């Protein structure tokens, strides 16, 4: 407020800063390639990556791969959301249920999705089911853990109010506990979706014939490092977009929260 600055100029400056480092890196990389310091087999130049990207876009292959991967992710994530939320709420509400499940959840949680691939194939075969299962595993734990936490963090002050007013448990859970857990649940949903998306590569290691993870792993078999990079960057960009989207949704859905904290 002290310095008198043109807000418009400021905005442009910020925007420039936002992209400048990326541009510098790309430029240096391209130059190093032209100077022969970077062998294209080790790291193809940005120009080549851009070209490959463009070709994949143009041929419609990229849209197909991304589309299939997104569908898989949504499917696995959807199941994880339903199960994670309902189990999370149940565990959050019942200490007994929590004690019963805690050990299993704690031990299964650190097992990475790729380690599940052999069992996934044995249990669900090599079709869509096993891929969805791998993605499900990735999304499930962030959702359930955050849901449990959210439920647990129910403000004790409201518990007292409900006790004094003899509010029936079900009404209390519906009107206070679950809405109160909502911000934590949203965080779980957001992290869960991100992890689900990150699991797509692992999932598509299973006998896939399409999908963005398949694109990368196939290109890897064929030593096409440009395609590998295009695949990686695509995952990165879509991941970022998903995250931004959910964050925006989150803000809109829990508008009361901002005001409440400042209350």
């Amino acid at each position, binding site marked *: 407020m002290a310095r008198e600055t043109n807000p418009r100029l400021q905005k442009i400056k910020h925007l420039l800063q936002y992209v400048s480092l990326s541009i510098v890196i790309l430029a240096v990389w391209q130059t190093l390639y032209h100077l022969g310091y970077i062998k294209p087999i080790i790291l193809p130049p940005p120009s080549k990556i851009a070209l490959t990207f463009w070709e994949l876009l143009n041929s419609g292959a990229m849209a197909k791969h991304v589309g299939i991967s997104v569908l898989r992710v949504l499917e696995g994530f959807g199941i994880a959301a339903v199960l994670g939320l309902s189990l999370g709420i149940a565990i959050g509400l019942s200490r007994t249920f929590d004690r019963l499940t805690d050990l299993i959840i704690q031990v299964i949680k650190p097992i990475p999705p790729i380690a599940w691939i052999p069992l996934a194939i044995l249990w*669900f075969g090599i079709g869509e089911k096993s891929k969805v299962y791998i993605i499900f595993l990735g999304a499930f734990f962030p959702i359930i853990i955050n849901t449990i936490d959210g439920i647990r963090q129910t403000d004790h002050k409201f518990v007292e109010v409900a006790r004094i007013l003899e509010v029936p448990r079900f009404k209390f859970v519906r009107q206070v506990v679950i809405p109160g857990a909502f911000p934590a649940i949203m965080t779980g949903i957001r992290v869960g979706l991100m992890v689900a998306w990150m699991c797509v590569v692992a999932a598509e290691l299973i006998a896939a014939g399409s999908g963005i993870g398949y694109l990368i792993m196939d290109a890897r078999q064929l030593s096409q490092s440009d395609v590998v990079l295009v695949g990686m960057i695509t995952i990165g960009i879509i991941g970022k977009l998903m995250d931004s989207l959910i964050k925006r949704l989150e803000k809109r859905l829990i508008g009361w929260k901002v005001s409440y904290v400042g209350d």
Partner: protein
Amino acid sequence: FANEIRIATQPSPFCASILIAKHKGWLEEELAKVGAKPAIKWTSFAAGPPMNESFAAGQQDIGILGDTPAIIGKAAGIDTRIIGITASGPRSLAVIVPTKSGIKSPRELKGKKVGVVKGSYAHHLLVLVLQKGGLTTNDIELINLSQADIATAITSGNIDAAAVWEPLITKLESQGAVRVLADGTGIKKGVLVIVASNDFVTRNREQTKAFIRAYQRGAKFIKANPKEAARLTAADFNLPPEQLVKVLAKLDFHPAIQADDIEELKKSEAFMRSASLIKAPVSIDNFADTRLARESGIR
């Protein structure tokens, strides 16, 4: 009759024969001759081990894979039998070194980093090649890598040599990146097999035979028209037809199991036991069902 046959393949030229039968529609023709009209479900696996998992899950009826993964699967308790030989070709598997490498003989592999897919038939070849140079796997640094990573690792100089199979040999050779130090000639026949789940064979013996006949037609076609065969299947293997022709020339497609195939399989099995790749022995005589091909009228 089963109303579905599930066939597992790999994106590798040794599957050329069955894929030609697929493209030409011969499998359906042969099945129709025995009065069956099943749906055919094709699945391509990156390697033998995941195909084994799929067989274990009861999701495949017939599959094409190397002899070693087939034996591993059998040893692990997957209920399958060998119904035929996919192909053999001593020159289709080799120990390769970078073109500029100083290694001229197997003996010089001593102390070197050698990449191989552990438990693959190239692993067996490597042991045999080392034997020729008076070495064992203890004399080298054995590095377990997938074929894809071997290609990367050998071109970027991360490993000194590798035991691999086609089409990687031809691919890397044509790039001028590697040369062959030793191939299977005289030491390993390089047998790949067709396995089928026992359950499928017992219930659908006629269809199994029809499959073998279709396979044989594909095999004959490759011998007669290698260029046409290469053109037909190049897309399946993501390989330029010129290179594929070279690879196909190294492979002998012959579904009927011969006596020397049995010998070869027995050697493989012995090797795998000695390398602790399998815990329980596998009886090759029981595993390989030589009658099916004979009953199909193929020798």
